[in-house]
């Protein structure tokens, strides 16, 4: 505040019933360069104040009609939030009278007889206080205004984001989640989508930082997640793309911790990738066991394309099993004593749980009991393993007319050696098959069958993996270990996919033949296995039979043929 401003003339109200005193004081104040208003009793003082709004009031305590104390109270009330300093003029010397002056809202007092120097100093000091208060109020209003803008911007940004994330399936009956509506601005991100094969992808992410910077990276991440999931890409390809994209667009010190899940309800497996998130859990409802889903990787957006690791872990699941993911806000929830909720307390909830359907509520209740209120960076999600077909993925909306639907063609795609290691042909095949309008109503079944056929040809055929290994959890882990090792060492071998589309009457038929370079198997024997023998191993062949119109295997088990037909389009 400049000196100039401090010496600006003020309008000062002087209220005193003694005319001599009033005139004396008026002339002193005027000489000091201020404008003066006068009143001869308390009521007049209040009236003049209401009408002229002086900036400072000198008030005699003892006045007729309305005394100084009551006048001060009314003036303060009229002044509202802005500070109008009141200096009591008093010949009172008793302590409690002076206290009454201050209690009535007086800011200072001046004893009679008046000392000009002291009066000038007090007016100056009061003026400083008045200006300070005005500045504070102005800044407060400014902050309120800016906060309003910020909230509005967040609302708009969130609305845009919700549009990007609209295709999500967080409302699916097998998903429970808890997240602040503005979690996005804490960098928390929760996404879920059905795969074209009838499975589900889930992502829980946590960007470094807060506010807009944390939210900015969420948009491209969500787009990659939904776009690639819908096109039939697997976790490995999605992860590579997300990492590369974030690495390219984010500054060096920003990254995104994330856990991704790929649930396959048909095969009853979940694929997990955790980079930098706290342990998630696989809760087995049969045994009550909770298996940690540990962070094995650096967060997304840190490593270059070349050094990024998309290796996932695979776990077997039974219907009713639950996957539980959480942000660090859960573990770092603090109580009044600044103790953290911590991993031990969380795991204790899992141990004490007797009813798996109440697991999510139990965790919520434990957090509530610990802290009382929830922080806005607490995100948790629980995904339940269900029987295939129990969930109904929404119908895909196609934008084309169907007039160009190709109905008479065939194609052979042969993938050899090295290509089998990293290349996933399914998204490309899906895109092609999607052009056949007659098949769209059964696209879920078609894609499930195609992915099943391809996995079988690669895993049991080319890699020679024994599906009976998957009978128990231990063998299951072994199976995926072997899959990864053998794939790494793969030199030759092939998977050949042949597609033929033929018109039939007003409909048509698609035939898919899949052949591989493996040893083959005895299809009769595999088909006749009892469920006990099968355990966790492939229900693959039966599934293919169920979902396709016709399915058969060659005697040597090295090639499979399935058919999908459709009638006239409505």
């Amino acid at each position, binding site marked *: 505040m400049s000196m100039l401003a401090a010496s600006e003339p003020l309008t000062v109200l002087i209220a005193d019933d003694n005319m001599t005193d009033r005139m004396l004081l008026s002339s002193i104040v005027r000489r000091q360069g201020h404008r003066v208003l006068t009143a001869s009793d308390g009521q007049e003082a209040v009236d003049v104040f209401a009408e002229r709004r002086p900036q400072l009031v000198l008030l005699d305590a003892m006045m007729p009609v309305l005394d100084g104390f009551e006048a001060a109270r009314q003036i303060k009330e009229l002044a509202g939030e802005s500070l109008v300093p009141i200096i009591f003029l008093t010949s009172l010397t008793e302590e409690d009278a002076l206290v009454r002056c201050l209690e009535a809202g007086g800011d200072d007092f001046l004893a009679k007889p008046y000392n000009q120097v002291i009066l000038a100093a007090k007016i100056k000091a009061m003026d400083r206080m008045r200006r300070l208060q005005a500045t504070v109020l102005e800044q407060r209003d400014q902050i309120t205004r800016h906060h309003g803008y910020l909230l509005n911007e967040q609302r708009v940004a969130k609305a845009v984001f919700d549009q990007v994330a609209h295709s999500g399936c967080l409302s699916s009956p097998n998903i429970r989640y808890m997240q602040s509506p503005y979690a996005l601005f804490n960098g928390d991100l929760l996404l879920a989508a059905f795969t074209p094969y009838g499975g589900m992808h889930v992502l829980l992410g946590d960007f470094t*930082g807060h506010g807009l910077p944390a939210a900015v990276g969420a948009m491209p991440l969500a787009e990659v997640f939904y776009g690639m999931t819908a096109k039939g890409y697997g976790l490995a390809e999605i992860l590579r793309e997300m990492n590369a994209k974030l690495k390219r667009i984010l500054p060096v*010190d920003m990254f995104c911790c994330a856990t991704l899940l790929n649930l396959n309800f048909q095969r009853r497996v979940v694929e997990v990738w955790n980079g930098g*998130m706290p342990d998630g859990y696989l809760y087995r409802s049969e045994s009550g066991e909770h298996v940690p889903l540990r*962070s094995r990787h*650096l967060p997304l957006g840190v490593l270059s394309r070349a050094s990024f690791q998309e290796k996932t872990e695979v776990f077997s699941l039974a219907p009713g099993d639950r996957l539980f993911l959480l942000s660090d806000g859960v573990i770092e929830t603090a109580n009044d004593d600044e103790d953290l909720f911590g991993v031990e307390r969380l795991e204790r909830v899992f141990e004490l749980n007797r009813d798996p359907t109440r697991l999510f509520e139990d965790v919520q209740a434990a957090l509530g009991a610990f802290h009382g209120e929830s922080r806005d960076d607490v995100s948790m999600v629980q995904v339940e393993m269900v029987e295939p077909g129990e969930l109904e993925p929404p119908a895909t909306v196609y934008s084309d007319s169907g007039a160009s639907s190709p109905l008479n063609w065939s194609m052979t795609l042969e993938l050899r050696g090295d290509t089998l290691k990293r290349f996933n042909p399914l998204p490309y095949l899906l895109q092609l098959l999607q052009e056949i309008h007659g098949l769209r109503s059964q696209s879920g079944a078609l894609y499930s069958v195609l992915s099943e056929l391809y996995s079988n040809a690669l895993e049991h055929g080319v890699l020679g993996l024994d599906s009976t290994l998957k009978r128990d959890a231990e063998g299951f882990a072994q199976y995926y270990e072997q899959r990864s090792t053998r794939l790494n060492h793969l030199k030759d071998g092939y998977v050949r996919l042949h597609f033929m589309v033929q018109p039939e009457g007003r409909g048509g038929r698609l035939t898919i033949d899949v052949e591989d370079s493996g040893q083959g198997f005895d299809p009769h024997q595999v088909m006749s296995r009892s469920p006990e023998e099968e355990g966790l191993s492939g229900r693959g062949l039966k599934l293919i039979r169920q979902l396709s119109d016709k399915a058969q295997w060659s005697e040597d088990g090295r090639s499979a043929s399935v058919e999908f037909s459709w009638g006239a389009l409505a």
Partner: protein
Amino acid sequence: MAVNADYSADAKELTINIKGRFDFGSHQDFRDAYERVDGSPQAYKINLKETTYLDSSALGMLLLLRDHAGGDTAKVKLVNSSTDVKKILAISNFDKLFEIE
């Protein structure tokens, strides 16, 4: 929170000491510690002996230093971390980028 830096006797290694909480509040001090030094150190040592807490923005700052020191060829060592700090570094798998002692 306090950040200071000193050179090894042969002036080849810069040690940055971080006291108290290592979070966004230390951003400027941490950057100054390696950007405003004379000479060009060949290696860096982050002494976390008196670091009580480390959050994700601190991890971001470590990435900035690594980038400054040459990215994949950078020699950045994190030393003397407490159990809690080690846990955070382990969850993020930062041992894949930094030598942690």
